[in-house]
Every structure is written in C-alpha cells, then in structure tokens.
C-alpha cells in the first residue's frame, strides 16, 4: 500500500492582520510543523504540494528570506524522513515562481519542484506512479501573443481552458508511455469547473477552468487554489491547512491522505488551525454589555470580528474601547474589527412600500420620501431600468 499526503495553499507570509506582522506567520509555521509531524507519523511515502506556498509576490529580500527559510525547514523534515515531495508553483500573481526556482537550486534531497507542466514518473515499493504536474498560470503569456492580444478576458479564459484541456491530455498521454499499471495522478493549481467555489457562479468565465473532459483518464486529481477542502468524484481540493482570513471562517482546514492499494481511499486530516469568529449582536446584547454583561467564551484564541446593531442612543452609551478590551479579556487572540450598524431614529417606513413593488417603484417611493426633485427621480429610475436590463440580458 502506498500512502500519499496532499497539502497546499499554505501561503507562508508576513503581514497578515494579527497582533503583530509576524504572529500569523508563526501560526502557519506551527500548523505546517504539526502537519509534517503527522505526515511522517502516518508513514506517508509521498507528499504532493498543490501550489501557493507563498502569500505575496515581489517582496523585499529580508521578508522573502524569512518566508523561503520557513518553507525549506518544512521540506527538510520530509527529506530527513526520506519522504519524496513533489511541489508545483501556484498562482503566479502572488506565488513567486522565483522562490520555487531558488529552492530547486538548493537540491534538497527527495524534493522535486515543477513550475512548468511535465510528468514525474516514480516508483514506490515496486509500484509505478506518474504525477502529471500542471502548475498555476496566468494569462500574461497568452495575451502578449498577437493572435490573442485583442481578446476580452472571458475570451482569453475560454482559450486558456481549452489549452489546459489539451495540456492535460498531453500529460496523460505521456503518462501512458510509462508503465501500463501505473497510477496516474494530476497535480494542479486551478479551479475545477464542478468545484464548490463558495460563491455564486456569476463570475463564470472570469478565470480559466479545469474541465471534466481534461481529467478524464486520471486515477486521482489533487488540486490546490480553492480554500475549501472538498471531494468531487476523484477530484480533491486540500484547502489551506491554516485559516488565513474571514473568508475561511466556515471551512475546516487540513489536508488529505490517500491510500493506494488497488483502489484509492482517502481521509481528511483536520489541522488545529486558529478560528475566525464573527458575532453579530442585536440591540439587546449591546444593552446587556453596557449593563455589565461580558462577551461569551466563543472568542477564545480566535481572531474576532464583532458587528452590532443598535439605535443612536444606545450607540452613544457604548464605549467601543471597553468593548474591544472585553473581547480580549474573553480570550480573543486578535480583534480585527468592531463594526456598528446604527439605526437612525428618524427613519419612517412608508405604509405604501410593500414587497410587491418592483425596484423602480420602490426607488421612486424612497426618493420621494427623501424629497428628491421629480426630474432627478426620473433619471434615477431610468438608470435603474438600464441596470436591470443589463443584469437580465
């Protein structure tokens, strides 16, 4: 049986919002050490790193050296344990290819780095495995070609998606040149078109995608890019092992371990990542705090965000500094934001405003209440109609 760990979207970097520019970087290092220890403890034979090891591109050398050093230390753990690591670079705009090339130059034992598509045929315990590597990409190399120069972004993305399919077929074809019995794995950093991206597909064609057609024939597809661990058939996203922003609040961070033994089974290993907590307080909770109630224990060790709704009178009574202190007293690791939604008391609800009104009518009512001149209301309504048609068409 071969054991493979699949991890990615690490985003080593200084300067995340936190108690200090270093503190979240330390969190990432802690989680990565924990992950390495677990992977070694699990006796994995192979580690696949699916891109985006770094937070930012084009950083000063003093910062870059700290981030690259952290990455190297992590890789040396596997090297010492004689576990092969195959790494691809991620999204070039924030995951510098140069950092990967630098590590490649160091020739760390058992570390293979790919910044361009190619296959890595390996043998583990007499079992052949082909890893087809398709690193992250952007559209810059395409748009500089005359043929594509004047295309709009969605046209470019369609062309890119098409080329990605061709590259995947080409890589699989190269895999098939190897051992017949090999397990063929695609390692890439891209959006799979069936993945749950965590947002509505309104932005379709705003990025290139990996189509189902492209992965047909691979036994396993290990991807990075979407920070939402998931499995869609034989396609796996590892997500990020550490939460990096409030966008990750609801996700369960970790990495995958596959066991290849005839078939392929998978387990998701949850990492002890730091929590992000957003609480929304209604007015009665705000009043409770003013009267001396303390925030609950939910903020313990978490990066906290608090939103509260109250009227103007209550807002005047609230000491925001005291509220921030109370959150820290409740154990918050870092208070990222306290945001007020103050309800104005002079707001009057027009009885004629009902759910049945369309946006244009509702806008007219609102504008009339704001004593907007009729001609301006007409212009606003016209603009609204234009927007609605634009959305609808």
């Amino acid at each position, binding site marked *: 049986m071969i054991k493979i760990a699949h991890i990615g979207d690490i985003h080593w970097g200084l300067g995340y919002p936190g108690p200090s520019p270093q503190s979240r970087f330390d969190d990432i290092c802690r989680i990565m050490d924990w992950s390495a220890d677990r992977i070694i403890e699990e006796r994995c034979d192979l580690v696949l790193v699916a891109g985006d090891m770094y937070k930012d591109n084009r950083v000063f050398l003093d910062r870059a050296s700290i981030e690259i050093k952290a990455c190297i230390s992590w890789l040396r753990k596997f090297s010492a344990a004689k576990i092969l690591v195959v790494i691809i670079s991620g999204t070039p705009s924030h995951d510098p290819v140069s950092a990967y090339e630098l590590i490649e130059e160091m020739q760390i034992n058992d570390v293979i780095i790919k910044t361009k598509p*190619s296959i890595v045929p390996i043998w583990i315990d007499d079992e052949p495995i082909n890893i087809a590597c398709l690193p992250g*990409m952007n559209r810059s190399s395409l748009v500089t070609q005359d043929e594509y120069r004047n295309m709009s972004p969605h046209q470019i993305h369609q062309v890119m998606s098409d080329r990605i399919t061709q590259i*995947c077929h080409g890589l699989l074809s190269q895999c098939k*040149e190897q051992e017949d019995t090999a397990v063929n794995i695609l390692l890439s950093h891209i959006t799979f*078109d069936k993945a749950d991206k965590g947002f509505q597909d309104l932005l*379709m064609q705003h990025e290139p995608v990996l189509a189902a057609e492209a992965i047909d*024939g691979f036994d396993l597809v290990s991807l990075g890019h979407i920070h939402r661990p998931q499995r869609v058939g034989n396609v796996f996203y590892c997500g990020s092992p550490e939460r990096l922003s409030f966008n990750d609040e609801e996700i369960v961070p970790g990495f995958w371990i596959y066991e290849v033994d005839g078939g392929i089974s998978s387990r998701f290993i949850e990492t002890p990542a730091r929590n992000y907590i957003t609480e929304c307080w209604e007015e009665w909770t705000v009043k409770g705090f003013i009267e001396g109630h303390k925030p609950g224990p939910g903020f313990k060790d978490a990066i906290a965000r608090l939103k509260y709704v109250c009227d103007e009178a209550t807002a005047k009574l609230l000491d925001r500094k005291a509220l921030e202190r109370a959150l820290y007293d409740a154990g918050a690791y870092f208070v990222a934001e306290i945001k007020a939604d103050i309800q104005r008391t002079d707001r009057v609800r027009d009885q004629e405003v009902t759910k049945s009104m369309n946006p244009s009518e509702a806008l007219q009512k609102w504008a009339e209440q704001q004593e907007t001149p009729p001609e301006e209301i007409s212009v606003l309504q016209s603009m609204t109609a234009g927007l609605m048609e634009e959305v609808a068409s």
Partner: protein
Amino acid sequence: MSEPAKSQDANIVSLDQYRKGNYNVLVPTTYMQQISPFHRMRVEEVKISPNPGDGDVFRVGSTKVGDGWQDVLSLSKTAILKLSNAAGIIWNFYETKVLSATQDYVLYQAVGAIRKTSGEWVPLKATKEIDLTVIKEELMEANLKKANEMSKKPDERKKLADMTPQQWAENQTRTNLIQWRKNKLMRAETGAMLRVVRALLAIKHQYSTQELQRPFIVPRVDFSPDYTDPEVRRMVTEHGIKATTELFGAAASGGNHSLPPEQPEQIVGQAMNSEAFGTQPIDADEHTDAGSEYGEDIESGFRDNHDGNTEDPCNDLPDGENTIVANCTACNADITKKVADYSIDKFGRALCYKCQRKGS
C-alpha cells in the same frame, strides 16, 4: 454534477430516463448514440434557481393557473452561460464580431459550435441588431402613454413636474436612451451569443417556476482519445506541447520528463478549437429544420425580446455574402456582407464601395 453517460449499451444514452425522472432535457431526441471512438458522451446536470433574486432568471410576465397567477420566467445570461458551459459550446472569436456599427445602430454576429455525437463540430451563427431610432420611437410611445395616464390621475400628476405629457415623455425617453446608447454594443454582443446558445441547445424562451425546479440535463460530447494507440498518443502529446508553449512560454515545452523525442511534424496551431469552425456555420436565423438533432424550438429561442427590442428573425443576417446586411454609415446605401466585412476590417466601420473610395 456530471456523470459519464450510462445505458445497457455504453455507446447509447437514453435521455428518456431523465425526462421521466423530472428533468428538463435540452436535446429533443430520445437517444443519443456515440459513433466516434475518440469521444465520450457525458450527461451534465445543471440547476437553475427559479428565484429571480438569485440572478438565474428574470420575470417576463405571469399567467393564470387555476385561481391564482403564476410567474413566467426567462433564463438570464448567467443561466444560459451555465448551460452553454455544461454543453461545451465554444466560440469562434474571429467571427464573433461587430458587422456594422454607427452612433444609432449596431449589428453583431456570434458564431458558436457544439460537438455532435460523431465528434464533429456543428458551428452556428446568429446576429443581434439594435437600432436606436426604432427603440427611441418605442420608448417615446410607451412614455407618452404613461405620461398621459399620469396626467389623468391627480395623485400622480405631480410626477410630471409641471411638464406637459409630451415634454415629460421626451425627457424620459432621452434619459432611457442614454443607457441604450451606452450599452448598445454589449447588449448586441450578449444578444447574439445567447441566441446561438438558445438555438444550439433548444432552450425554451419561457419557463414556469415548477419547470425550473427540475434540473436541466445537458448531454455533451468530450474528446477522449484512445491512449493505447501510439499514434494517437503522439498526436495528443504534440497538442499538449503546443498548448504548454502558449500558456507557459517556449521553454516550458522542453520539460525534463518524458517528452517524446519527435518534434511536431506540423504546426499544431489548428488545434481542437479551430477544427470546430472549419465548416460554414449554420445560420440560426434561417435554420428551421425542426427534425434535426438540435432543431427543436429554435425559432422560439430567437424571440428574445425581453430587453424591449422587438425582433423579427426574418430581418436578421442571411447567409450569402451578397445579401444586403447593413447600410453605409456615411450615405446610408445598402451594402452586402462581403462589402461590410471588408469595410469594417479596413476602415473600422461599414461603408459602401463608393464611400470607401472617397475615404469617408
């Protein structure tokens, strides 16, 4: 979700099982038989939210059902693109272009293609015309009617802001037209592309909420080469190298692992995408063969007038190069497609032969 097509015979997809299973099946045939060994059929399931707030549909009216009223919904651009994506429709961006554009007029052509079960591509073109002079008349008529109604109701009269109904309607029409003018090219582009998708997939123009609660089933045909054949492997690898060079730069194709020693014998630039447009596209505007594989409801798909632009499919661009398709932007003379193409290419706008010579 997608799944490879299944049936007792792996090469035949029975679409009736989906129809019986409460799905909207987007191809009118009962069975689709795979006849190319290089391709594989797949059935994609696409969910479209019937809630207009989610952006997949918009309300175009209502119809009486029993004692109550039921919304009549039309698919938005987002939903149609979802279906287009699922079906694997691709675009010929060289032919998807403006055919004619002036300050008040735009004619846009879109050419898309879908893969048939034989592996062949079916290209199809459609046009969308926006004529602001006609739209202005329509808007003026509607606004004047509205203004006259408002003037008769004491509680709404103040909305006229001391203007006569005629003045108010002119004012309103002017502001409405600004939006039309601002977005006319984008609307024409979207309109033409949506018409291609509607025609290729036989998408109905209107749906009820109940119908949209059923997911859509979109059969698609994917390229699936036989990797056991060394010649196929060589060709596929060559395509892959070419694509790698395009996306990652020239040095990328010289990777250190297992690239075959053979260099491509020919430039593989005519890759899969361009194969799709090797044949003359079917003109959606003229295509009325209801018995064909993709023919159902094509005509209804063209009555895409939710944006208020009344369309007559017969007025759209015919196929022949010598057919009148536009007017000269300088002297308003009729011009053929051939002349329009040449002029737009050379002068950036549609000019007749005489005006081209004058250098208008």
